[in-house]
């Protein structure tokens, strides 16, 4: 089936097509899902190489389960987020048993667009945010990232984290408060003042 046609097809339909042998479906699913999976894994692990390994493993599990996928039971993205959460939890447990990753190893997040200066400032802000996220307890970080960066609704996060909706709300609120406390007083470091100065200069 042509790729243009598949771009508007749902994830579930694509997975069924993949299971039936359509080679284009795998490419569309990879292009659609792997950036989200990689982004989430990177936020949780703060290690790009490990996040890439987790992304590959999560997608491999998706390919493996495709023939047995029961349509209508769960969203594919929800299932993937859950797999990634569990894989990251396993990795972090293993990491605690060996020498930890230094804070300076936090990934430098690439800026998306704009002038060179503003791109650099945006990259600095994203790196600062990542370092602040790294200081949150695992469950709070997962809840905050899923809610405020991945943009998921609380019931979906509850499914991913295997919690009740109220527990998710509590985790998200506490995580966000802790994040604000960590970033407090770092407005200049985050580049907001520089942004304002640049806008004035333009």
């Amino acid at each position: 089936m042509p790729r243009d046609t598949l771009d508007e097809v749902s994830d579930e339909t694509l997975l069924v097509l993949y299971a039936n042998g359509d080679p284009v479906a795998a490419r569309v699913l990879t292009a659609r899902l792997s950036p989200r999976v990689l982004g989430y894994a990177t936020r949780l692990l703060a290690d790009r190489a490990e996040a890439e390994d987790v992304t590959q493993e999560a997608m491999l599990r998706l390919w493996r389960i495709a023939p047995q996928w029961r349509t209508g039971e769960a969203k594919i993205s929800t299932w993937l987020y859950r797999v990634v959460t569990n894989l990251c939890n396993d990795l972090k447990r293993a990491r605690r048993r060996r020498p930890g990753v230094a804070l300076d190893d936090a990934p430098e997040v690439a800026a998306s667009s704009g002038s060179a200066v503003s791109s650099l400032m945006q990259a600095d802000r994203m790196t600062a945010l990542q370092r602040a996220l790294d200081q949150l307890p695992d469950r709070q970080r997962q809840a905050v990232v899923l809610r405020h960066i991945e943009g998921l609704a609380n019931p979906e996060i509850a499914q991913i984290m295997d919690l009740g909706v109220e527990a998710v709300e509590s985790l998200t609120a506490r995580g966000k408060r802790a994040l604000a406390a960590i970033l407090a007083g770092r407005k200049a470091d985050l580049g907001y003042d520089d942004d304002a100065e640049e806008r004035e200069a333009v």
Partner: protein
Amino acid sequence: MDNDLDLDALLAEAAATPTKPSEALSARILADATAMQRPLPAQRGTASRKRFGLWRWVTDLVAGLGGGPAVAGLSLAGVAGLFLGVADPVALQSITALLSSDTTMVARMDLLPATDILWTEN
């Protein structure tokens, strides 16, 4: 961070900043996908469609008769039967002479002597 609004802006900025997988990662993921995938039904049927015609009829017949070994045995039996039917019996005389020696007496008995008259030509 002076207030939650700035944190919201920062998180929104993070949400709008895509994490692009490297080409190497995409290639690894697609290689896994290809390795795990069954071929399309159309592709699976291509081989049989190519055999459409006499060859397909022959292979179907062979399969129906029980496969290659069964067909080989059947062919051998057919050839042997054909040989026995066509071959000159003279070729077998040496064998029959060996089996029935000259000293053997074969008694000729007339089981129905009364019918001899019927065969007599006058």
